[in-house]
């Protein structure tokens, strides 16, 4: 590995602008790193030829004075974004061999801004999971290991391949999608920054849908500044997504002033939960102290319906998934398993094409939407969702931003929590409420657990106020000074 792999996006942009190195060289360094770290299984498909072609085009654009926001930056694209001419699987068998004839808006925005595609990163199948163990293409391994142990840890999920590639330096950044925590939780487990924007900030067009009222794309990077740069490139109104919101995209970097004096930071008392490891609470306390020393004012707040967020989520998300995934029927794309009749063909195709967790969620969703249960389950969950959104609305009358832990534990071992779906769901206990409320959130790495694995803190903001979230995240990042490296990265320790 060359030292190019350790640069942040902002440093790399400066380096290319000064002529220290080219996009071609930067991309080659990452292609080597991708090859060197294949044991992590972070990528489903590597696209080195496309990457070099895009890098050369980038060098020409820069030479002509037309450099974009992400000009020449090699990134991993979560394999949930449709990429024209490159297989897009959502980590499923049912979409194996699917080569989109169109480009998702967000990936298109990134290419237009000059980003270079290294490959399609692995994920939990259809983005359903919190450990990246449900992919048809195998588990992703976290580049981090526990002290004195080479046991394989999960990178979190669903954006596990994206998180692992960024942590292992085989990509400068990656796209993620977050439905209930799928950007923030893997960012915390892998020691990187992950930002879920406000619902409606980034277009969902061309992103394989899981739960449409919750899904949102966002950047996964190694610094808060990089997240600001990449979000600006990804975001924007798109007439092709009727839930895309027509508001201007600010220059997020300008928000990184470091000045948070007088800002009120909400500390929700309901997020102090029984059974949370002591070091998670300690990291949280430390975060509060950092913000206080920077001149912000911590304020205890109450989000009274917090404990109902997860069960409500596990009605709403499966309900939407059961209807979104109805399109995989062996007719228009993907796998077809022949049967004795049309219905038999559908059933065999879907029975063999979907993994266990996906089937579980489709069945739960089908059940809660079925006649007789719709009101008791689905409408009840939507009412609870209103209460949760109102909790946040009320809290933001008195605070500017909210600080919480990102996840209730550091990265766990592959194989742990696997036979109990609910234990797995509890990973998202701190991330799901803001997802239900559509609010922006970021996870910032703040230190290492007693096991030597990363811990993250989460900042949540008001709708469309990613700027405050980024500003405060920048202060946390600066105070934490997180500089540890994972064991399994390109170039070794």
């Amino acid at each position, binding site marked *: 590995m060359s030292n190019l792999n350790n640069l942040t996006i902002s440093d790399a942009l400066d380096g290319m602008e000064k002529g220290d190195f080219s996009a071609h060289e930067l991309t080659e360094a990452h292609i080597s790193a991708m090859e060197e770290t294949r044991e992590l299984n972070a990528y489903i498909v590597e696209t080195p030829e496309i990457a070099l072609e895009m890098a050369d085009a980038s060098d020409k654009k820069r030479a002509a004075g037309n450099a974009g926001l992400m000009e020449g930056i090699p990134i991993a694209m979560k394999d949930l974004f449709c990429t024209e001419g490159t297989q897009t699987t959502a980590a499923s068998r049912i979409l194996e061999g699917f080569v989109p004839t169109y480009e998702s808006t967000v990936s298109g925005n990134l290419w237009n801004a000059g980003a270079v595609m290294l490959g399609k990163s692995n994920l939990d199948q259809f983005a359903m999971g919190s450990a990246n163990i449900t992919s048809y293409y195998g588990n992703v391994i976290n580049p981090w290991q526990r002290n004195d142990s080479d046991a394989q840890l999960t990178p979190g999920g669903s954006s596990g391949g994206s998180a692992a590639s960024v942590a292992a330096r085989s990509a400068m950044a990656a796209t993620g999608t977050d439905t209930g925590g799928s950007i923030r939780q893997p960012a915390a487990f892998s020691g990187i920054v992950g930002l879920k924007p406000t619902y409606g900030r980034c277009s969902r067009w061309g992103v394989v849908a899981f739960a449409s009222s919750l899904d949102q794309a966002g950047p996964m990077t190694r610094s808060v500044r990089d997240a600001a740069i990449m979000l600006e490139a990804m975001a924007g109104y798109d007439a092709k997504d009727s839930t895309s919101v027509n508001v201007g995209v600010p220059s997020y970097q300008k928000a990184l002033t470091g000045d948070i004096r007088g800002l009120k930071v909400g500390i929700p008392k309901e997020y102090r939960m029984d059974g949370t490891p002591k070091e998670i609470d300690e990291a949280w306390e430390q975060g509060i102290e950092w913000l206080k020393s920077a001149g912000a004012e911590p304020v205890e707040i109450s989000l009274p319906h917090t404990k109902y967020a997860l069960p409500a989520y596990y009605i709403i998300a499966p309900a939407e998934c059961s209807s979104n995934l109805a399109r995989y029927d062996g007719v228009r794309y993907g796998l077809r398993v022949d049967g004795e009749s049309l219905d038999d063909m559908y059933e065999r195709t879907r029975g063999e094409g979907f993994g266990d967790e996906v089937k579980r969620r489709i069945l739960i969703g089908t059940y809660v939407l079925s006649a007789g249960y719709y009101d*008791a389950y689905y409408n009840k969950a939507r009412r609870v969702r209103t209460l949760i959104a109102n909790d946040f609305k009320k809290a933001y009358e008195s605070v500017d931003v909210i600080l919480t832990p990102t996840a209730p534990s550091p990265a766990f071992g592959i194989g742990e929590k696997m036979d109990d779906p609910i234990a797995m769901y509890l990973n998202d206990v701190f991330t799901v409420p803001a997802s239900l409320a559509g609010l922006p959130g970021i996870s910032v790495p703040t230190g290492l657990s007693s096991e030597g694995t990363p811990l993250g803190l989460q900042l949540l903001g008001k709708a469309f106020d990613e700027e405050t979230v980024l500003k405060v995240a920048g202060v946390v990042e600066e105070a934490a000074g997180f500089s540890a490296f994972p064991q399994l990265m390109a170039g070794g320790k």
Partner: protein
Amino acid sequence: MSVDKNTVAKIARLARIRVDEKQQEELTGELNQILGWIEQLSELDTEGVEPMTSVVEMTQPLREDVVNDGYYVDRVTKNAPESAHGFFAVPKVVE
């Protein structure tokens, strides 16, 4: 509320997912575990609370009802497991 094996078979049929006897057994246990956990929502009084329809307060966008896309059948059918004459092909459904 809980489900039995017959209900699981019925849901699987509605969802057009083939689930064999053994899987039906396993899924009955798993779904009941999840449904039992979801049940805690019933302790919450939601009388008079509007079910959320959209997390962002916005009016639905409207556009003119005109054709603004299309005319590329080959791209639409390119990924089909089977297609013929510009159509998706499926197993015979009428005798």
